[in-house]
């Protein structure tokens, strides 16, 4: 998106969206992963998937920086400034998702309690100016009521080093099935 004399606050939003789109494009077109970067990033991605499956949302949230975002576009080619998404969360909304997943009146995601499994493919990562960029294929299985929901896709994750170790600054889930239609995905994070 070109900058056409936007107020600074608006421009900051647009810049963030452009950076997110560019991040995905870089990850999808990058050569083979860097071994050292992959070694730093892979454990974080593995932990993030394991913790959310275990409903350990406090520890899961700790893996995200205060300025982190989660973007789940409806189509892999989408842009967050132009297209409706399944989700575009900042850290506050991520924490709301975590709260919602424990709320017994969140009928569609807690009654009965769901079981999920995120299976990650091999991680590839690259060093970036601030941290690392990582990606892997993943499959998600969600079992609660009715037929199991199975989705496959790819995640693209940006990380940076903090005093507590590597943390996630952005996570993008690319799920091709969203282009056709799915059951509700109120549980997805």
């Amino acid at each position, binding site marked *: 998106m070109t900058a056409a004399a*936007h*107020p*600074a*606050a*608006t421009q*900051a*939003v*647009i810049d963030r969206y452009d950076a997110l789109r560019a991040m995905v494009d870089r990850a999808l077109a990058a050569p083979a992963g860097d071994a050292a970067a992959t070694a730093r990033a892979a454990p974080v991605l593995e932990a993030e998937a394991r913790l959310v499956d275990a409903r350990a949302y406090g520890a899961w949230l700790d893996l995200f920086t205060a300025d982190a*975002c989660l973007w789940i576009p*409806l*189509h892999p080619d*989408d842009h*967050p*400034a132009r*297209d*409706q*998404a*399944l*989700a*575009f*969360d*900042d850290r*506050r*909304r991520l924490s*709301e*998702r975590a*709260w*919602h997943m424990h*709320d017994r*009146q*969140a*009928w*569609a*995601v807690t009654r009965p309690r769901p079981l999920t499994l995120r299976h990650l493919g091999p991680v590839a990562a690259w060093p970036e100016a601030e941290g690392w960029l990582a990606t892997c294929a993943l499959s998600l299985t969600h079992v609660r*009521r*009715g037929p199991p929901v199975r989705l496959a896709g790819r995640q693209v994750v940006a990380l940076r080093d903090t005093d507590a170790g590597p943390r996630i600054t952005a996570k993008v889930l690319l799920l091709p099935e*969203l282009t*056709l*239609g*799915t*059951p*509700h*995905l*109120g*549980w997805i994070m």
Partner: protein
Amino acid sequence: MTQDTTRPDAIVARGPDLTDLIDRLVRHDVVHRSLYTDPALFDLEMLRIFGGTWVYLAHDSEVPAPGDFVRRQMGRRQILIVRTEDGGLRGLLNRCTHRGTTLVGEDGGCAKRFVCPYHGWSFGLDGRIQNLPVPDSYDRLYERPFDLGQVALATRAGFVFGTLAAEPMEIDTWLGAAGPWLDQHAARYPGGRMGVQRRRLTQEYGANWKMSWDNAADGIHATFAHASYNHLGKEADTDTVLARNPADTPMVSKTLGHGHCVVDQRPGIPDGPWSTMRPLPTREALEDGLRAKGVTDPATWDLMTGDMVNLSIFPNLIFVGNQMMVVEPVALNRTRLRFYLTHAPDAPEEIDLMRLRVDEDFLSFGTPDDFEMFERVQEGLAVEEEEWIDISRGDGAGDVLGADGLVTGTVASEAPMRAYLAEWKRLMARPIPTTIRRARIEDSRFMQTIRRREMAKKGA
């Protein structure tokens, strides 16, 4: 009227007269479970409701230039809404007139013509056949009605509706009291120009399509089914509109005729819709941006959220927030919802940037609970011995019947449910004559030949 379905001008009224049965199933205050569980009724609904009356198909802005098309669903039929070279609109059946192959596999695009991938037949934007391979292999090609089938289209305020009814009601008559509400919705956009996002969210639930309709004007469910969403609001120290007790608000529901209805929440929100919005991603920055541009007009700010007017146009268009929710029945117990986010092309850019994030909120935390309730109702309706569902709320207890026959009530009233079921009865009771339109029937060689033969017969 001819019922000879081999003729391209056939007008056919399909299925039996069910007046007595339908009268028994839908009473004033109760409705029978079989409306949600009987596959034979579902099959008839696909003919008489999603075919026999006007069905929302697209918004005019989605096909701005000649050749632009979108693929939509009318019951079991795929319809291509196409902008023709002369600027008009056509609703073409996405079905090659040779073997029946669907011509287009994409949800939308721009085309000069539609070419069947199976045998190469090609059709113009207006549906006329342009070419086919080896035409000499037909003895009398001119007698064959090979132009694409079409549905009748009508537009109001940019909203495009289609039907197969042979003699459909005038669109303004059919919309009736809902028409001005539709106009008002469109007029909310600067310059009256509304756009529709290119991407739509598609989700399915495992229950009958009418669950969406039962829910659309149900003001009570929000307090209970969406309790978790409401508490999200409380945690954020923002009083969402859903968190308020609907019985304590002056919000109203109105029936609008032909099954349409509206829930007007505005009387319960004196400070305007934006005052009820929760903190959202990018909200503060975009508010700062709007203020930096000197935008103070409340109407512009309110454009960022829905207008708090939930208008429902039976049988398949429900306005929720900034979304147009389009109901597509898939099977008796499976329904697809398409969420089309609208935008305001002539408003400051911050408006549309914010709209993107506003409507992800309820879809994340609210819509799943609606689906959950629909599926649980469908499960519960499997109990054959409990045959009836009560729909009497509000009747004789707050509903006001106007001189125009329309009912106004609180948002607790089930008058909108009774009203759409009355329309359902009207459409389902008797066969509705339907016909497939084609680009040229009357002036076709086919029809000339038929007329010649008929004249010859009469002469003999």
